[in-house]
């Protein structure tokens, strides 16, 4: 995908440059762009070094665990089918708290560990379970407290108030996350009430999907919670 997008920009630029007679400007722009890429990356160093230093203090003080505890009720609500005390929940909480603090490098491994644990509960190893879809929804909309990269870029281009977008970003990210959770809930309940479709070439897999995802012991509790939400 990235390959096509990159190629698209370059190829279209070439054609547009012919049409507009701007071939000289194109050469200049290519090298100017490369320079901007380096300038911006160097601008990131100051903010990244400072912020990751600060975040390490938070990590060592157990702040990630503290946030995880605060998130616990929300995560129980979002993942009703995962049995209480299952390791997946711990990884989901670490993933979420790392995301909130903007620690992408720490969030991804935790998210993948969570996926691996959810895969153990998944009856069909090639089709995403409802819990996996929820985890993905949370990560694609990822709540971030401080958009450090953007602050750094705004500083590089000498903004008068580099951090003035912190509040607007937080508000937008909360709305995007709320939308993700609502859409996820909607699909969950739809899947639960609708009989499985038979159009697929593997009908048996769809039946497996329609069954409760959690092990027998916890299935009843999980289902009940899911219904209460509707």
């Amino acid at each position, binding site marked *: 995908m990235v390959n096509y997008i990159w190629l698209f920009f370059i190829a279209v630029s070439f054609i547009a440059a012919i049409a507009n007679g701007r071939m000289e400007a194109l050469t200049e722009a290519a090298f100017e762009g490369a320079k901007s890429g380096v300038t911006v990356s160097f601008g*990131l160093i100051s903010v990244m070094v400072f912020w990751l230093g600060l975040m390490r203090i938070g990590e060592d003080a157990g702040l990630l665990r503290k946030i995880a505890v605060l998130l616990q009720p929300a995560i129980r609500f979002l993942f009703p089918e995962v049995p209480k005390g299952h390791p997946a929940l711990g990884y989901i909480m670490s993933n979420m708290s790392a995301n909130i603090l903007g620690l992408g490098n720490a969030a991804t491994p935790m998210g*993948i560990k969570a996926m691996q644990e959810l895969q153990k509960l998944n009856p069909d190893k090639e089709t995403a379970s409802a819990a996996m879809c929820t985890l993905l929804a949370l990560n694609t909309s990822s709540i971030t407290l401080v958009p450090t990269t953007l602050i750094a*870029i705004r500083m590089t281009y000498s903004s008068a108030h580099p951090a003035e977008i912190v509040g607007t970003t937080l508000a937008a990210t909360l709305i995007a996350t709320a939308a993700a959770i609502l859409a996820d809930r909607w699909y969950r309940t739809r899947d639960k009430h609708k009989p499985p479709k038979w159009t697929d070439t593997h009908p048996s897999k769809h039946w497996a999907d329609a069954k409760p995802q959690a092990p027998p012991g916890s299935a009843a509790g999980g289902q009940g919670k899911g219904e209460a939400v509707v």
Partner: protein
Amino acid sequence: MRPLYEWITTISAWLIPFMIVFIPLYAAFKKVPVYETFIEGAKDGFGTAINIIPHLVGMMVAISMFRASGAMDMMASLIRPLFDGLGIPSEVLPLGLLRPLTGAGSLAFTTELIKTYGPDSMIGRIASTIQGSTDTTLYVLTVYFGAVGIRRSKYALKVGLFSDLVGFFAAIVICLLVFE
């Protein structure tokens, strides 16, 4: 609604200083050697920033050429009639398409907008907010599901793209309201 916008402005001003003071104080209370820990963590920052260089250079070259060739203006003037009535600057619309597909590409596009129109222009603020408020859906899906061998992602992509769309318009509306 006015108090809400003031809240958003207050958060922008207070959140970072609060974290800079609160985190070390809390850590000191937990008996963490704050300065040594800071230095230890800060070392990672350099590598993180340097690792972005190839991605950003590649994408900045493409986007910079796209602008200089006049293609970006042609594209914007094509979309303009659709969104002019709504008061949305059409320059940010390609960013909405790019954001879910490529993180580096949309970051480069945001940078180009900030560079051209200035970080404190409405376009610069909206682009910053859009870029900061969602993640690259396609990348996250590939990495997370790929890691455990999931081939059928069910409705996950739709949910991700829907939240990107909501986030995109939320960012525009919030910026227009707060920075009017």
